[in-house]
């Protein structure tokens, strides 16, 4: 019972969305948009579940004095600070419970929430993102090794494109005569990107598309139901 009704909901919701795709008449033409809107609202509520989990997990670690518990305490504090400043004085152009906090704004230059966002959050996020520059170098060093025919293809195309996209790629092959201009590194890069690369990307997208049809169908028809959990 606790599992059958959800399965029925999945079936009805799924079929409704699929039918409505081909019916341009209201109310069907509105269904997908409405459901997507609902999704935003439901997930907005659900967000609280995550936050509760975060508080539970961290406070358990603090209570049990786990290794590194101090950091988890700091995590909880930063969560609380951000939440409270956001609720009290709002963010950007939105007012909070206490309005816009003009007094604090003259002192800080920004709302406290925005101050933390700009000076802490954004830098943490941008720096975390920039680690990719390092990791892409170490991954290239380790992975682009001459081994088999396939791994050579991987390496050679990568090297051509890396060269072709930098400023000396053009210089390196600039002396080539016009008849061989297609070997010009930037041109070769464009060629690789446009043809062999697109071909493989298309193959991946097309077969994945078939996989999606299969997966969705199994879910909508209730053949795949493991995500619904137990029957108790």
């Amino acid at each position, binding site marked *: 019972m606790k599992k059958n009704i959800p399965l029925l909901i999945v079936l009805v919701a799924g079929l409704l969305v699929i039918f409505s795709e081909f019916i341009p*008449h209201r109310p069907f033409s509105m269904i997908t948009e409405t459901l997507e809107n609902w999704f935003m609202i439901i997930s907005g509520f659900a967000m609280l*579940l995550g*936050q509760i*989990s975060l508080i539970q997990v961290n406070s358990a670690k603090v209570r049990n004095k786990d290794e590194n518990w101090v950091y988890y305490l700091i995590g909880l504090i930063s969560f609380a600070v951000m939440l409270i400043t956001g609720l009290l004085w709002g963010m950007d152009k939105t007012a909070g419970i206490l309005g816009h906090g003009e007094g604090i704004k003259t002192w800080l230059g920004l709302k406290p929430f925005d101050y933390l966002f700009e000076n802490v959050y954004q830098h943490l996020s941008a720096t*975390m993102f920039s680690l*990719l520059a390092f990791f892409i170098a170490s991954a290239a060093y380790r992975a682009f090794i001459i081994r088999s025919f396939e791994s050579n293809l991987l390496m050679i195309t990568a090297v051509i494109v890396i060269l072709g996209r930098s400023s000396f790629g053009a210089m390196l092959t600039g002396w080539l005569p016009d008849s061989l201009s297609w070997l010009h590194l930037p041109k070769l890069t464009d060629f690789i990107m446009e043809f062999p690369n697109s071909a493989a990307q298309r193959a*991946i997208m097309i077969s994945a598309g078939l996989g999606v049809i299969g997966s969705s169908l199994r879910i909508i028809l209730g053949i795949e139901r493991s*995500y619904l959990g137990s029957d108790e």
Partner: protein
Amino acid sequence: MLLLFGAFCSLTAGNTTLNVSDVPHDAGDALLIKWNLPAAYKDLTLAKADSAGIWQELNLSQEPVGEFTDTDLAPNQEYRYRLTAISSSDTVSFIKNGIPTEQWFYLKKMSFLIFLLVISFAILFYIWLAKQGKDLFIRRINGLDSMEEAIGRATEKGKPILFVPGLADLDDIQTIAALTILSHLARKSAEYDTDLIVPCRSSMVLSTAREIVKEAYQSANKADSYKEQSVFYLTDDQFGYVAGIDGIMVREQPAANFFLGTFWAESLILTETGFGTGAIQTAGTAQAHQLPFFIVSCDYTLIGEELFAASAYLSKDAQQLGSLKGHDFGKLLIILLILIGVVMEISGLHWFTNFFSPEL
């Protein structure tokens, strides 16, 4: 449809027209405007009356005969158009109204519908065949066969398993596919008594993942060893989430990492850190742009479709395996369609390609 006709100046030729008609088989958001003027008229201006009745120019055309489709309209509302044309001797102006209406079928989506139906029926047919007890062959998929081995390794070492269900929310099919794989992995790890760590980026995924892991432990008769806190939420932020997982990888030192689902730019941050900790890494995604990074830094990678085939393959359930046969039918069909399309194009027949490339 109300037609309003007004010529402000005298006309020299007789068969001049301005026509405004509804575009058939659509959501009632477009009107087709056609005009047919004598060749002497140049400098045509088409204008539409806005809500305040003021004429707003739509486009300029030098052609005395032409058409224009006005889109993004609201259904069942009346719109008014004016065409002004100038010739060497005079200026003419026409005004006409039109109402876009909704219909019950999108004609432009015909090929889409046929395609979807054919593939779906093929999948259902093979599921039915499997139900009849027909033995269906599916070749081995390395990335999937190795999953159990990875869990075994973690068990030997007494280290946990890390499962990351992607960075997308539950509205992405890749996340759902990843969660169905989680159900198999959780059962295995329950059987082996190996700890499972599942950090989640969104609350909906968290809820679903908890249900799944709990159910898996129950079905392995290990309900007591299920710890709710092993499936937890970190943050909704892309890089905050990644920072947290990186911390978990270096501190908990999981022996097997699974990154399945939707990943964006952060993919390499995760797998390089995981590589540094020496874990066996299995990744899978349909995000074509992230696959290279998984390929170079993971031991096994499920490419595109393999992610969606995984749960069916792992379940070893005949019906689920049957559905994979349906995918395969689709592949052969598509290869055939492409070949026909190429031949048609070479012979200069474009209707075939056009049928498959509607404006969706």
